[in-house]
């Protein structure tokens, strides 16, 4: 056994793999997917003319009454900071978890139990969705703030609702940004 004779294969293999997996492979992937799925590869961005409004996949912070609200977000320094994703990492017994839930409940000003996803922070801090149940409880507030019939709000929600993929995978979900774009008349 000698280490010396392994030096050359080490150097050569590291060089080859760095070129192959650090260069050729990611560039080939980029070439394929930028051709096949250009918009998705760029981040599923939603534009209004030249201005980027957001991404279909990245949640935005909504706190005004006329908008549908999403999950709580624990990113810092502000919620839904898409340059620094983060969950809250609160343990189940952490008083801060309970305080955050109660504060959200008070802000929603609802009677009766509130769907749990509306009172809790997502893992990514950028969750673009809420559950259909969490959207439904917000309909009266949005309709009142917009002086619009509740059915129109429900229609906007229904248009942005996805059922589980293939009927089995994942959960039913409502894309919050999409609902709000529809309510503002910026997405047909």
């Amino acid at each position, binding site marked *: *056994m*000698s280490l010396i004779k*392994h030096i050359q*294969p080490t*150097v050569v*293999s*590291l060089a080859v*793999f*760095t070129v192959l*997996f650090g260069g050729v*492979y*990611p560039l*080939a992937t*980029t070439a394929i*997917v930028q051709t096949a*799925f250009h918009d*998705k*590869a760029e*981040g*599923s*961005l939603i534009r209004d003319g030249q201005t*980027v409004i957001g*991404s279909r*996949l990245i949640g*935005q912070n*909504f*706190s005004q009454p006329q*908008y549908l609200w999403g999950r709580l977000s624990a990113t810092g320094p*502000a919620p839904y900071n*898409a*340059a620094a*994703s983060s969950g*809250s*990492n*609160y*343990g*189940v*017994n*952490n008083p801060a*978890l*309970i305080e955050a839930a109660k504060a959200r409940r008070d802000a929603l000003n609802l009677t009766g*139990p*509130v769907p*749990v*996803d509306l*009172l*809790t922070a*997502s*893992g*990514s801090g*950028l*969750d673009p*969705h809420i559950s*259909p*149940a969490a959207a*439904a409880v917000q309909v009266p507030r949005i309709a009142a703030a917009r002086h619009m019939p509740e059915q129109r709000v429900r229609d906007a929600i229904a248009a942005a609702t996805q059922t*589980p993929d293939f009927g089995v*995978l*994942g959960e039913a979900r409502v894309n919050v940004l999409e609902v709000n774009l529809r309510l*503002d008349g910026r997405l047909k």
Partner: protein
Amino acid sequence: MFLGITSAGWLQLVLYMAALTALAVPLGGYVARVLSGQRNWLSPVFTRVEGLIYAMGDVRPDQDMTWKDYAAAVILFSFGGFILLFGLLLTQGVLPLNPQHLPNLTPDLAFNTAVSFVTNTNWQSYAGETTLSYFSQMVGLTVQNFVSAAVGIAVLAALIRGLTGQTTDKLGNFWVDLVRINLYILLPLALIVAVALSSQGVIQTFASYVTAHTLEGASQTIAVGPVASQEAIKMLGTNGGGFFNTNSAHPFENPTPLSNLIEMLSILLIPAALCFTFGKMIGDRRQGIAIFAAMTLVFVPLTAACIGLEQAGNPHLVAAGADTAPNMEGPATAQAGGNMEGKDTRFGIANSAIWATATTAASNGSVNAMHDSFTPLGGLIPMILMQFGEVIYGGVGSGLYGMLVFVILTVFIAGLMVGRTPEYLGKKIGAFEIKMASMAVLLPCALVLICTAVAVLTPWGQAGIYNPGAQGFSEVLYAFTSAANNNGSAFAGLSANTPFYNSLLGLCMLFGRFFVLLPVLAIAGSLAAKRTVPASAGTLPTHTPLFVVFLIGVIVLVGVLTYAPALVLGPVIEHLNLIKG
């Protein structure tokens, strides 16, 4: 609802296991062909590349190595990879593809990250989008994602050759194994998965971060990057280091339930397939099936338990006014319910819990939900799966060679109980093999417990703790469990990016990798030198249900006896505090 799990949850668990098995069996056969040096359907593409690498590296592919030679090559290759990555992270500020002008990493963070990726752990002390340039992610991390995985499979191949060899000291050629695994197995799989993930919305771009003008008039900076190419090998190579801080919870890493399924399958695909590779290479498929069965019989009940515990939810949140009952009644009022803190809506409870157990059963360590926010017992399950030594599927290669160490211990214990000479696959198990196997099993355990004690007793360790009470202890226990067993997931409340944690966790990763890998190669060398004796009436068959149960018993006993006191101090106390209300 059955056992606290919705029917949709059960269906997804069954689908997952069925799809995993259906993919693992054929892949296992293909991997066996690659490791045996046989021609396969990719040979026309890569034979010349292979030959070119051997020529440049002065490798004679037909020249087999002794176990010591093989080990020396593994060590030197890993050390070279470490130096390269360490240097790259320390100088990323002056390197290209850094549109956000991110600065060089601190030495302790560069050390931790380099060790983490070379040892196939991929612990995240770094926060991807705020720490690492595109160049570091692509040319640094992605490369190690491939080659550290290949090293694990190579060592497994050497062990299999040790089990089948007859009075030889040759275990194959490390360089040939390394090149073939990378080219014929990892590269094509990664390319397929990367494209599949992109079709779901995983991004792949070299643009700078995007600025969006939100509906409420704020400005939102959206981090982007070449994610898909790294995501694919991150999942396939049981690596798990995320492009973004929140890993596969981030919608750009894992946008849909379908991308989630592809990624979850990628976690366990190669580790599960290697069981069938093993059966084929030793010429007795039943042996591989028995090991796959033992892994599955531990995995599925623990996964179901984790789903049920998370679906049960947090009574504190119910008291605060939350409705946590799952509702599948029609699309207008559906919700996942349960403990949704730290979980994303599209994954809900079932997919977050299945991921948590899969990623810790394998030494993947990626997350799609925040484990620190799991219920105490729901979070105990990922922890114990790592504490079993990462052998329930485990890391690519390392999981199965770890499992074979447990098999050797099991035949030894069984032999003691019935007074038979222990043997496995016709090879007599002697004192040397048992010494090496004990070292491989016990060293990670000792690292976890000693380092956890050191951290909770010193101010540097205490400073990183985030959650109050017993959960704080669990964060530290989880961190060292994850590092010493080369997993990489975290109770991420812990502030681990400090010189203390970066150094100590880095050392745990190094020892946890190489002081298992080296004894395994020693066992391979020792077994290769022996002759296979034909089975007799006195031979304990190792493919029977009885043996599978006995093997599970040994794994569970070692894990539980070692860690029960520590688990009581953390998750169990936290659970008692939860139900007390």
